């Protein structure tokens, strides 16, 4: 097949052609945003698990009137535009915000435009993605095995760690995967609260945005393509995980 040289002015074709330059670009690629994203996602995921698990436990087993309010609040990041979320976070964490003033008085400075600020924003932004699978898992377990454990002398804490956590493992894994992936893909909130400080707040998605702004399509391609593959692998793994869990489900009594 004949090869037609691309029209230099056609940006789409230009960007496809630039795929051939990937090896060259990879050599000179600024990998700092990638690692920053990974670091952010890792820290966020660990903290998310520690926060979302008890909240999910409480939501699954408490009879409380504020339960539905808490559920609604924790789901807000699902429906709010990230910019709205980021805007409020900025007001909250900024120099004049209540939390900003608090952190300043504690000698921590303001958290806006810092990595810890990003972590806080990410936890809130990704919270429903971690909460839902854990909550579903706890609800699926139900009270029955926990009651059985209680009649076998297990204290509430022992019941949580020896029954609830092991039985909720698939849900916890889903929460890790979803929380991590969702934080990796975060953009709007980060732009609002973190800006783009290299090595501090310039994460992958922001880097891609800037490359596109600067018409550096080849670099954008490498990062975007990487994200695409990463996201696909994550979702595929999640599906594998879920179907294996279903296959392992015990036959009903």
């Amino acid at each position: 097949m004949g090869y037609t040289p691309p029209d230099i002015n056609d940006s789409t074709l230009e960007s496809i052609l630039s795929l051939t330059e990937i090896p060259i670009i990879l050599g000179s690629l600024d990998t700092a945003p990638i690692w920053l994203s990974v670091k952010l996602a890792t820290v966020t995921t660990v903290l998310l698990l520690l926060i979302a698990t008890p909240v999910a436990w409480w939501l699954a087993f408490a009879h409380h009137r504020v339960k539905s309010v808490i559920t609604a609040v924790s789901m807000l990041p699902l429906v709010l535009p990230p910019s709205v979320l980021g805007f409020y976070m900025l007001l909250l964490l900024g120099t004049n915000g209540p939390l900003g003033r608090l952190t300043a008085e504690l000698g921590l400075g303001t958290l806006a435009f810092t990595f810890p600020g990003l972590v806080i924003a990410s936890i809130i932004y990704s919270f429903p993605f971690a909460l839902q699978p854990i909550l579903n898992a706890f609800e699926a377990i139900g009270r029955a095995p926990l009651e059985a454990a209680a009649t076998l002398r297990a204290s509430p804490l022992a019941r949580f760690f020896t029954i609830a956590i092991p039985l909720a493992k698939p849900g916890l894994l889903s929460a890790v995967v979803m929380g991590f992936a969702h934080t990796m893909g975060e953009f709007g909130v980060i732009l609002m609260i973190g800006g783009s400080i290299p090595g501090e707040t310039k994460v992958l998605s922001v880097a891609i945005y800037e490359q596109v702004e600067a018409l550096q399509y080849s670099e954008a391609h490498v990062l975007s393509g990487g994200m695409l593959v990463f996201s696909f692998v994550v979702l595929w793994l999640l599906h594998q995980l879920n179907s294996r869990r279903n296959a392992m489900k015990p036959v009903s009594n």
Partner: protein
Amino acid sequence: MSSINASFRLTRQSFVLDVAFNIPTRGVTALFGSSGSGKTTLLRCIAGLEKPDQGYFAIGDHVWQKGQFSLPTHQRALGYVFQDSNLFSHLTVEKNLHYGLKRIAPSARKILYDDAIRLLGIHQLTDRYPAELSGGQRQRVAIARALLTSPDLLLMDEPLASLDIKSRSEILPYLEKLHLELKIPIIYVSHSPDEVVRIADHMVLMDHGKVLEEGPINELLTRTDLPLAHLDESCAVVEGVVKEHDSHYHLTYLDIKGGQVAVSFRDLPIGHRVRVRILARDVSLALQPGQKSSITNVFPVRIESIIPASDPAKVLVKLDMGGEHLLSQITHRSVDILNLEVDQTIYAQVKSVALMR
């Protein structure tokens, strides 16, 4: 003798549980009643799994519930066998069994691991996961798991209800063995008269969240003012001991209060305690003992009462046989022909006697 004292009041939407009873700390007490009568709720109150509005529970000197005080479930020395076994699906049978056992101080263990798996016949299943067991096997593991906490009281919530007939008959012998070999009092929830007559010694009869009556099993079975005597399979259960064997006719003779009965040969030692069930419809009445008949089991009895049965053609005759009670279901017509009256002494002919254990 120490006893189990319970009283609970609990309201759930339209359902009200309001019970108080005293039962012995030995043997099997059946909580018997139709579904919705509050049996399971009562059992859950005893276990501390439900929070009653008001409650008192004590077993011997141990008070589990009194006023505002309620011992948490995990601090009550009880074993609970759930209707659907409720094994931990992420643990093997062995680990399920150890789950409770390891929480009991070695000095407080009255039932050892090896004894429990022998008693329930599950030594070959220990490496399996619950999903790999049949319903009957799962329930046996659940019973062993509960026993291994060496409980002061074993609560069983219709342990056979979720099983098919085959698994049921597979488990019943184990339950009877449990009853004979262990001294743990058992409260057994059931709506099946068949199970109750096989394993219960004592019965608490429940209806609509209330206790109708409680007492020794045969007393309640033969009370003509209670619903049990009016079931199709109304019967009496009588305790006895093995007296002698007759190898020629393949019979085993049992001594019961007020006489002796012959049953098909059963290889049991002389002196072994047994229980027999005598169905009301298998008991016919005669004025004379000597008539030639194919029926071997004939006893002198006194008529205690005669009341109409649910079938208009029939009556229930309550009989006193040396202090033990029997029921006989005969027709109105026979009552008139034989001219039967209360306090009259006549002869009960028992067509068939079932050895329950």
